[in-house]
């Protein structure tokens, strides 16, 4: 007898516990919270972390100067693109389209291949530039490899 009372109590407790939200209309949130990272923020964070790693590698003596500069300018460009995308997303109040960020990164990377990102200051110059518009250094096609 006690057994059946026990079983009935357990079953009733479980039933009330799981049915209550449906019957009483208690809702769980299904939205992303404000303080969680958005996709553009996450991207920005990754880009900045990558920059940090390169700094660390250089400082620890694992990368030499030319490698460090070329990697850094590339990463700086990506980080800038990610930052811009994040700001754009904040301004619009909605996350930017994935594709936009990627397109921007691709454009800057492409630019770097043709040697227009300044290896000294990381500024992305227009295609065909011979001197950096930001710091005035010569833009030899020596960036990258």
């Amino acid at each position, binding site marked *: 007898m006690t057994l059946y009372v026990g079983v009935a109590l*357990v079953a009733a407790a479980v039933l009330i516990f799981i049915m209550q939200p449906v019957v009483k209309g208690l*809702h769980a949130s299904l939205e992303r919270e404000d303080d969680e990272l958005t996709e553009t923020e996450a991207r920005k964070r990754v880009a900045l972390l990558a920059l940090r790693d390169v700094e660390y590698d250089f400082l620890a003596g694992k990368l030499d100067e030319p490698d460090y500069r070329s990697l850094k300018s590339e990463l700086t460009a990506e980080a800038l693109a990610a930052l811009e995308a994040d700001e754009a997303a904040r301004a619009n109040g909605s996350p930017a389209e*994935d594709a936009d960020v990627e397109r921007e990164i691709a454009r800057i990377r492409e630019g770097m291949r043709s040697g227009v990102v300044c290896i000294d200051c990381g500024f992305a110059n227009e295609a065909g530039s011979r001197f950096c518009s930001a710091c005035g250094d010569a833009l030899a096609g020596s960036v990258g490899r």
Partner: protein
Amino acid sequence: MTLLGEFALWISLPVALWGMALGYAGGRTQRGDLVLSAERSVYAVFGLHVLASAGVMAAFLGDRFEYWYVASYSNRELELFYKITGLWAGQRGSLLFWALILGFFSSIAVFTNRKKNREFMPYVAAVLQTVLAFFVIVLLFADVNPFERLDFTPANGQGLNPQLQNYWMTIHPPTLYLGFTAFTIPFAFAISALLSGRLDARWIQLTRRWILTSWLFLSVGIVFGMRWAYEELGWGGYWFWDPVENASLLPWLTATAFLHSIQIQENRGMLKVWNMSLVLLTFLLTIFATFLTRSGLIESVHSFAQELKIAFIFLGFMASVLGACVVLILYRLPQLRSENQIESFVSRESAFLFNNLILVGAAFSVMFGTMFPLISEGVTGNEISVGPVFFQRVNFPIGLALLALAGIGPVIAWRRATKRNLQKNFATPVIVGLVVAVALWSAGARHALPLVTWGIGAFVLTILATEFWKGTRARARIEGEGYVPALFHLVSRNRRRWGGYIVHVGMVMIFMAFAGAAYNVDERFLIEPGDVVEVSSPMGHTYQLRHDGLSVSLANGQRNLLWQAIVTVSVSRDGEPQGILTTEKRKYTTQDPGGPPMTEVGIKSYPLEDLYLILSELEDLEGAVSANSDAQGLYLQVLIKPLVGWIWFGCLILAVGTIIALWPSADRRRGASEASADATPEPASAVVTD
């Protein structure tokens, strides 16, 4: 209590199915009330399984032999400790225990995400309840119900297999189960990401600590199993490539691959489909491991027929999960395209890729070897199993390549490594590796494979030590700190990276220990009391072992023992007394009366080698057991096992490294809003950019 537990198990099925249905429905319709109900059902199922497990334990403690499971794995004389652990001593209890742990982890996952990551949670709850419902269905309908009653009540149970009455055996299975089940959480998040279309790297970041937790328990669980085999099986080995061991290794291999490949997705936005496939594969392999371990499918094809039902249920479940996931991945394929391409063959990305190919290749070879008996029976009608030789031949080169990558990966540059970068980072370690190999060769180590292993090990350790040294030095210089605080801060600023390196150190030690097995010494002596035998070890020590006497006690059934023969051996090493070691033969009442007695070995561990004594055989068994004082002669087997202790020590280091990587980092605790501000803070960057 036991009956209440049985009812609780039955009640848990509709609850789990309810949660599953509402989770999917709630996710689809975005109705918060349905989702809340689904989430609550996760807690409810866990609570019900706590009741069910308590019921099984109560049956064990109360010697309720009318239950088949209790009668088969316990008896009145069994020690209390083993009655409590009876819950996971056999297949039926293990499955319930599995469901219990899964419910526990699921509840933690739902609870910790009750206020965040909400867009994932409907489907997460649904997937978790699907897996839980599957296990409850197996328990209730596959003839493996732990609450099944016999038609009669036996006077006593059959007792627990004496080999399972060992400390390591009581903690080895639960540890592995923790690892297996914890992996269900990342799987649930992955499926949720696929279902909801939120396919950025977020599901990976959210489950990174679950993945590491699972990996930690899997690694430690596997090593506990090795330790058990080493102490209990009585012939000095720790790994046999038997199906059950392989089953636990498989998900470990793919989980290790996954741990590495997610870093490419996070950093470079590549390999999205691959990561989805790996998480799915690993999850399936954890289910497969349960299935293989607990169905007896491979060990004996004859028991297969008896277990047909459970085999079909498991295979059906695995096939449906696989099918569903493949469809989902194909459906989402356009969103899973890669954001970048590998720029160079010589880069960290490609090192990670090689690591992945090797690990998955190893998993396939182990899988093939394990399933070979079934395959050959299907094709030729004869069951042929492949021996350890197959596994060793295949896995040795794989292991060496993996070992080398453990050193190459951490220092090779992302994107593309230049020649200068390679020279700068690899010249010294390569030289150190070569010097170590040559030094060992001239010291008399002539086996090729161990030499290669130790050479590569030294190469990797040099790289890792240099990493720590360079990092500490740089930090100390910039911050003006002492080296100790600099090292501490260095590690705590980027736990993930440095924790990972520490894990690599542990793995190197374990690999080096494996290679030591080539120098095992194994000798057997017939000795009478007072005899002294001498054995030399490859490390140059000489052990003198004296037979100090054999004592035989008749236990008459206490603690299930019939009799116990203990030989006492005094050990000295290079003339220095080292105390005594004992090794035993034991006969249990629960054993087959005509079968051989069980062996308990004596082990003495030194940093570089273990002395391992086996009472191989009593010269006059009858005489000894009938307390004849002249029958004291015995065969003593003396094993010397170089470097075995490094496996356990390496595992400890590995665990420490994983825990460091797992530990919540400072910025996480301060809240996500500050996370981005925290991304640049390595003080180094400020100095360098100036």
